[in-house]
């Protein structure tokens, strides 16, 4: 079972001066799992995520992502993960095609691979008509699906999604989660932070952070049983209010 863990954090801690943003968190994420990373604003989830994706150095503890150590091998981690943040992370003044080419390029894909990927994307998402349009002119929902697909261009082992569905309508959110399921079915691990508790229900397992610590970690079903409530929303409220 141990080889199945693509993320493994052991007492991972980040301090800013006297303030402990992330306090000795311990968790594992299995391959192909959709792992929900919940917490209120300021609970430390973004900081924890930044340590895992190699742009923030932990103060103490251990963590391995995609088999590489976050202290010694952040470069290899970066090659094996994808990342999409809450801000849509594509260039508005570049066309769809140029964005794909650019992001494929910085992940070291060859021109041939980029072209193949692009054709595949265009077909899957039905982009034929907008492939030469500036991304800035697309509706939010489109941008978001595109950003997700672009983050997957280099076929990462794990994709990190930082509040990916902020500010979009329920239908688009639903479609977006279908894309997430499909990705997970293909064997890519999905690590997602979210505010929406209904989305937490879609995850295989969720962890809930409160004040820098992980206070609960299990499948949504078991968490609901444990706290004796009907929805993830109630689980969250119970925890966050202490």
């Amino acid at each position: 079972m141990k080889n199945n863990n693509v993320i493994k954090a052991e007492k991972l801690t980040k301090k800013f001066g006297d303030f402990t943003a992330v306090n000795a968190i311990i968790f594992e994420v299995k391959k192909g799992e959709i792992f929900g990373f919940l917490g209120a604003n300021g609970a430390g989830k973004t900081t924890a995520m930044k340590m895992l994706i190699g742009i923030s150095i932990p103060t103490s503890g251990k963590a391995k992502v995609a088999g590489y150590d976050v202290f010694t091998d952040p470069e290899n981690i970066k090659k094996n993960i994808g990342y999409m943040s809450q801000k849509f992370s594509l260039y508005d003044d570049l066309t769809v095609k140029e964005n794909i080419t650019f992001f494929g390029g910085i992940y070291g894909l060859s021109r041939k691979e980029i072209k193949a990927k692009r054709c595949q994307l265009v077909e899957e998402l039905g982009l034929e008509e907008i492939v030469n349009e500036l991304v800035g002119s697309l509706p939010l929902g489109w941008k978001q699906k595109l950003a997700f697909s672009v983050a997957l261009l280099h076929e990462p082992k794990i994709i990190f999604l930082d509040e990916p569905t902020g500010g979009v309508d329920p239908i688009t959110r639903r479609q977006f989660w279908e894309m997430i399921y499909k990705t997970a079915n293909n064997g890519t691990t999905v690590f997602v932070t979210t505010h929406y508790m209904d989305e937490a229900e879609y995850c295989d397992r969720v962890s809930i952070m409160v004040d820098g610590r992980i206070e609960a970690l299990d499948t949504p079903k078991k968490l609901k049983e444990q706290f004796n409530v009907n929805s993830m929303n109630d689980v969250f409220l119970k925890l966050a209010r202490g």
Partner: protein
Amino acid sequence: MKRFIGFLKKEFYHIFRDKRSLFILFGMPVAQIMLFGFAITNEINNVNIAILDKSEDVTTKEIINKISSSTYFTIEQFIINEAEIETIFKKGKIKAVLIFEKDFSKNLIKENNASVQIITDATDPNTASTISNYANSMLQKYQQEVNKSIEIPYQIIPKSRMIFNQELKSVFMFVPGVMTIILMLVSAMMTSISITREKELGTMEILLVSPLKPFQVIIGKVVPYIFLSIINAIVIVLLSIFIFEMPVQGSLLLLGVESVIFIVNALSLGILISTISATQQTAMMVSLMGLMLPVILLSGFIFPINSMPEILQVISNVIPATWYIIILKGIMLKGVGLAIIWKETLILVAMTLFFIALSIKKYKIRLE
């Protein structure tokens, strides 16, 4: 390397698709040079003056004739008493009044001494002193012409000559300054804005999570602006040579090398600014206040450093632009080589290295 070229391509898309930045990049240099070259000038031409001639004799007539035939002055009116002087100055059209004393000719011949009073409107001190200098030298010239026939045993005749800019064209003084400002603006401001824009949009995060190394991102951001700055420098030099007939006495190669050093200096300042500002607006304000103002006011571009208060002189010494302007003037107007300006060059290089080191350090701190 291929990743890097892809990155550069993206940067050029950004630049060429943003009409505003394109205008700043290429409109500004041309507009500024034209403005400084044609409109803003220290020279005087057709200054309106008034004359109060209390003696009205042959000599004063001759002098007045000389003055009115020059292109510097236009005799707007003759007045008859001192009381009028204040009124006409208040109206503002007349910038100077020449007053010939009574019995001018007689005094000149009998006592070898006659006086002319020059009163100037010093609400604009620079113009006032220029006008008074011009009037003085015209009177002196006249004196020399008259005295040619007369043998005076002892006389010291100062003959001044302005070298390196014989015609005292002010555009010669402005070109190095404008070039400095433009390079500073394009390099420092535009880079800091373009880096903070990625921060603001959140794409910087994406780039940092990608396998691209932070220094590759920064170099990729900077290289396009090095190109554009060099093109700008060339445009400015060509404009000043062909439109304002500004000579470039020294080596063009040296001019180029020094300019590249200055550009890199400005770029490292731009990176530094981007590390301390979170938004494009802050970056722009910091560049304007922190870089442009000192360059305009303290670099010796417009105001001579020697006449500044000591504390400002010290500050002006730590502004890279000060040294670059000295270098530019040296190469363009005096035609000097590295043998003369090695010290300034060395200072500029040292400052550049310092700012590069500082911005790398700051950048690293920010990442952690």
